[in-house]
């Protein structure tokens, strides 16, 4: 009897791959080496054709499987002939054994991260060096003084620093530079109050937008479901992670360490794909903070205004670590409201603005900007 691997592969992909994988547990068991696990191949054939019927025979191995996989039923395949099953099993035997080990090997290029030097350590080193220099200077001058005393040399009266030649203009210049610097940093610090541009905090889970939104092309709204529905764009709850990470148990970048944090939070045992019920919240660090006295609504901007996520959040799909891209200052808001043209004609939401529609029709206005429909009014956002 000969088996057709290609036909087996086609059947496998159409019927089995939804629940089974070669080397890892899916909804059903990993199928590499399945023929060897069954004592009698005839039983395996019967099991594949109709697992519910076969369970009734009381085969201990089959019952154990059924229990282990939370009593999920493998659908019956009455359309399979013995030849088809032989083809599928032959396809499974064609899987290389070593793929199981190479997949488990640590990924290339993922060497240990270089320890970054903390700038505060450098400052401490510098200060101690200056202190040592001063100390050595003191010792040297003390010794010179003792030597002069010993040989009865006349010690010249020390000249005050400011009276030494060339020192006055130098100190003047230094004072000027210092005043400029202090003035600038005061201004800079004052304008930075309530601003967090480039704020890039460490998050409890090293989630990469670059991988998920960039490389995997998952729509922003897949996770941030509130962006078109309400005020908050929504930080996804961990069940959203589990939509994919139920199966994806190892990442390319951090291996299993970061994904294990999801499992811990959501109470999931990746060994047997069961939920333990022990959950704990993930304390994400909020990046985009608006003052409480500012009202902002995502739905208004995305659904009505048709603004892209990236307009305010920047190229998130390229961010390995998420950071705040725009200043989110009031000037930035108002500027955008003055410059952004409203899609006035094609959006029923703006149907009530009769005067503006007339002005557009008569050519009195070229375009309607957000500020024309109240986007620069104080109470639009502050109330």
């Amino acid at each position, binding site marked *: 009897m000969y088996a057709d691997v290609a*036909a087996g592969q086609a059947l496998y992909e159409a019927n089995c791959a*939804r629940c089974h994988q070669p080397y890892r547990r899916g909804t059903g068991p990993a199928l590499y080496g399945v023929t060897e696990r069954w004592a009698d191949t005839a039983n395996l054939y019967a099991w594949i054709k109709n697992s519910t019927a076969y369970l009734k025979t009381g085969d201990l191995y089959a019952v154990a499987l059924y229990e282990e996989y939370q009593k999920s039923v493998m659908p019956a395949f009455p359309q399979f002939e013995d030849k088809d099953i032989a083809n599928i099993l032959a396809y499974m035997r064609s899987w290389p054994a070593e793929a199981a080990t190479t997949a488990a090997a640590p990924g290339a290029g993922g060497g240990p991260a270089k320890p970054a030097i903390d700038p505060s350590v450098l400052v401490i080193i510098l200060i101690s060096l200056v202190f040592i220099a001063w100390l050595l200077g003191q010792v040297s001058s003390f010794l010179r003084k003792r030597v002069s005393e010993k040989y009865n040399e006349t010690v010249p009266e020390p000249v005050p620093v400011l009276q030494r030649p060339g020192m006055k203009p130098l100190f003047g210049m230094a004072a000027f530079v210092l005043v400029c610097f202090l003035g600038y940093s005061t201004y800079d610090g004052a304008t930075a109050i309530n601003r967090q541009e480039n704020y890039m905090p460490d998050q409890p889970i090293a989630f990469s937008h670059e991988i998920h939104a960039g490389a*995997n092309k*998952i729509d922003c709204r897949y996770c941030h*479901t509130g962006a078109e529905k309400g005020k908050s764009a929504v930080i996804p709850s961990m069940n959203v992670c589990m*939509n994919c990470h139920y199966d994806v148990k190892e990442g390319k970048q951090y291996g299993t360490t970061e994904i294990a944090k999801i499992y811990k939070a959501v109470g999931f045992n990746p060994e047997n794909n069961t939920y333990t019920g022990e959950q704990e919240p993930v304390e994400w660090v909020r990046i985009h*903070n608006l003052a409480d006295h500012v009202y902002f609504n995502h739905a208004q901007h995305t659904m009505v205004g048709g603004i892209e996520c990236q307009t305010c959040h920047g190229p998130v799909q390229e961010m390995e670590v998420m950071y705040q891209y725009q200043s989110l200052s009031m000037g930035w808001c108002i500027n955008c409201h003055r410059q952004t043209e409203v899609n006035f004609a094609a959006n029923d939401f703006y149907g009530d603005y009769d005067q503006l529609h007339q002005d557009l029709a008569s050519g009195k206005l070229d375009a309607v900007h957000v500020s024309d429909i109240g986007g620069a009014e104080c109470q639009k956002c502050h109330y």
Partner: protein
Amino acid sequence: MTRTLLAAVTISLGLTLLASCQAGKNDPGRVYAPDMYFSQAYDAYVPSTFTNDGLSARTPAANTVPYGTTAYGSPTLEPWPFPLLSDADTAQMMPSMRNYLNPVPVSEAGLASGQKNYNIYCSICHGGNGLGKGYLVTGTTYSQAPANLMDPRFLSKGTSDAWFYHVLQYGKNSMGSYAYALSREQRWEIVHYIRSLQADYVAEKAVTDAAAAAAAAANPTPADSTTASAEAVVAVP
């Protein structure tokens, strides 16, 4: 003169050092008038010292009616009558599910909304055409094969509308529940859109099948199916 030079170098070095002082990446910076900046009421996701579990977000009380829906009257918005059961019990539920018709009437706007939401939530795995070849499967290394929604068993009579809704509500196999993202109405709209995809697929397949049959009739050389996969033949013990 060297002394002047030395002093100038020291001062500029010191200034550079001072200027390089900046907030670390974990520092959110300072806030003016914090009592106006931070909400007294709970903001989204803020922890609570008041509740037992430390979360300010609460699970709605039992029998809460979601915003935009009514508890009684509109069948669209009726809570889903079919519970999540084991596979065997679900099979017994299938006939009554078959009698549960899609309560949302088909409309242009509904199909457009179904298409939009399908493309956000479903197409990444099931593919834009429903053939089960989404980008996560073809473009990256996601290993579990999503269902091919054009499979004969999903086509119109094979699987009921209610079953699609049931899976969107509870998930199936590796697929999770999508109730977190889609309202009841949006889920029914997606079911309509899947049906429209299937109708397109069936119509297209009928055309290509007819063309193939016509070509076969015009050019009657019997295809030798045994040679097609001869290179992949191996012996079975």
